[in-house]
C-alpha cells in the first residue's frame, strides 16, 4: 500500500490529515468568535453540537485524524533520523530561505499535542464527555454540559491558562506557517510561482486563525480583570 510503504505516500497522509485538521480549526475558530459577541449565542452552538450523532462522528473522525497525523509524524521522524546516519555535523548553519519551523515540526507538534490534552481536560471532558457518559463532573458554576461560555470565562480568568494557551497558539502558528504551504507542495499542487503564493496565503490564513482564537482568550481575560 503506497500510503504506508512509499515516502511520498506517507507524506500524503500527513498532508491530507493536516489539511483536515486545519479545516477543523477554522470551524472551531469561527465558532469561538461567536463567544466574542455573546456567551448565550455560543451556548446555543454548544447545545446544537452536544453529543448528537453528527458531533460524535466528527469527534471520532477528528480523533482518528489526530492519531494518524501523530503516528505518521513519529514514524517519519524515526525514519528520517535513521537516514541521517549515526554521526552528526559538528557545525550547522541554517540557510536564510529555510524556515525555523520547518526543521522543528515535531517539537512544535508535541507542544500542540500536550496543550491539546490540557484543552480537552479544560473543556471537552466537562462537556461532550459528560453528556456521553451521562456524568455530572462539572466545574462549580457550570450550568450543564453545554455551558461552554461559562467554561471560557472560568478558564481564561486564570492568568496561567492565558500564558499556556498563548504558548500553545504560538506553537500552532509556527507549525501551520510551514504546514500550510507544505501540504500543497506534498500533493504536488505547487510550482515555482505557487510555492511562494501558498507561503504568503498560508501566513495570512494561519495568522487570522490564531488571532481568532487568541482574541477570545484575551477578551475573557481582560473582562475578568475588570
Amino acid at each position, binding site marked *: 500500500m503506497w500510503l504506508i510503504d512509499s515516502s*511520498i505516500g506517507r*507524506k500524503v497522509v500527513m498532508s491530507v490529515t493536516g489539511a483536515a485538521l486545519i479545516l477543523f480549526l477554522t470551524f472551531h475558530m469561527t465558532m469561538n468568535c461567536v463567544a466574542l459577541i455573546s456567551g448565550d449565542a455560543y451556548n446555543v452552538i454548544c447545545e446544537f453540537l452536544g453529543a448528537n450523532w453528527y458531533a460524535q462522528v466528527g469527534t471520532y473522525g477528528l480523533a482518528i485524524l489526530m492519531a494518524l497525523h501523530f503516528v505518521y509524524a513519529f514514524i517519519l521522524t524515526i525514519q*528520517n533520523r535513521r537516514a541521517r*546516519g549515526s554521526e552528526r555535523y559538528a557545525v550547522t548553519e541554517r540557510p536564510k530561505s*529555510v524556515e525555523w519551523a520547518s526543521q522543528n515540526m515535531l517539537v512544535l507538534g508535541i507542544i500542540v499535542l500536550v496543550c491539546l490534552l490540557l484543552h480537552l481536560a479544560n473543556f471537552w471532558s466537562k462537556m461532550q464527555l459528560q453528556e456521553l457518559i451521562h456524568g455530572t463532573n462539572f466545574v462549580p458554576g457550570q450550568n450543564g454540559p453545554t455551558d461552554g461560555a461559562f467554561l471560557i470565562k472560568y478558564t481564561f480568568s486564570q492568568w496561567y491558562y492565558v500564558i499556556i494557551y498563548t504558548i500553545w497558539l504560538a506553537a500552532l502558528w509556527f507549525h501551520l506557517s510551514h504546514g500550510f504551504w507544505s501540504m500543497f507542495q506534498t500533493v504536488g499542487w505547487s*510550482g515555482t510561482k505557487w510555492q511562494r503564493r501558498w507561503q504568503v496565503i498560508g501566513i495570512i490564513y494561519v495568522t487570522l486563525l490564531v488571532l481568532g482564537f487568541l482574541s477570545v482568550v484575551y477578551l475573557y481575560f481582560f473582562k475578568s480583570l475588570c
Partner: protein
Amino acid sequence: MEKNISFKLKVWRQRGPKEKGQFKVYEMKEIPTDTSFLEMLDILNEQLINAGEEPVVFDHDCREGICGMCSLYINGHPHGPATGATTCQLYMRRFKDGETITVEPWRSAGFPVIRDLMVDRRAYDKIMQAGGYVSINTGGVPDANAIPISKEKADLAMDAASCIGCGACVAACKNGSAMLFVSAKVSQLALLPQGQVEAARRAKAMLSKMDELGFGNCTNTRACEAECPKCISISNIARLNREFIAAKLSD
C-alpha cells in the same frame, strides 16, 4: 585586492567506514586569498606529505564545478558558504584571517564515509539505474526536429537537468532525503515528450529505489534548494509528487 590569510583548519579524519573518526586541527599560514579551497587543501596535503603523514583524502576532479565529484561540508554548509557554487569554485577570499574553518564529510546513512572526507555516493547510480532514462536503444530514433518542444519546456527541463549529482541535497537535508536529486531527473524527463511515455513508471521506480536505499522522507524544509550548487528548485519535488501520486492513483 589579493592578500594572505592564516587560519585554523578543523578537518574530519576517519580511516574507514566502520572506524571511529575525529577532528584534527591544522594551522594554515599565509594562504593567498586567490587560492581555491581545494588548492588550499592541496597545500595542506603537501605539508602533510613533507612531514611524512598521510594526506587528507577528499573527492575532486574537474575543479570547474560541473563533474559533481567534490563534496565537503564547510562551516555548516555543503560546498561552503557561497551560494550556487561547488567547493571547487570556492575561493579563500570568502574567509577571514584568524577564523576556524570546519570541514566535514557529507553525513548521511545513504553516503557512508570511505575515508576522511570521501564518501560513497553509488546510491545515486542505483537510483538512476532504477529508471533515470528513456528506455530506447541506439539507432532507430526519429529526426531531432520531428517533435517540436516549446522553448519554455526545454528551458525548464534544462534547469532540472543541470543537476550534477554531487549529493549536497542529501548532505543539507536534516532528513537525509534524496528527493531533490530524484525529482530533478524525473522532472527533466517528464517535461519532455520523449520522456513522458514512461513517466509514471519512472517516478515509481526511482522513488521506490530511493526509499529502499534508506534515504529519508522529504519534509519540505527547502535546505536542499538553498544549498544546491546548481540552484535546482523544489518545484521539481512538487512535480515528482504530482507524477508519483497520479501514477499511483491510476494503478
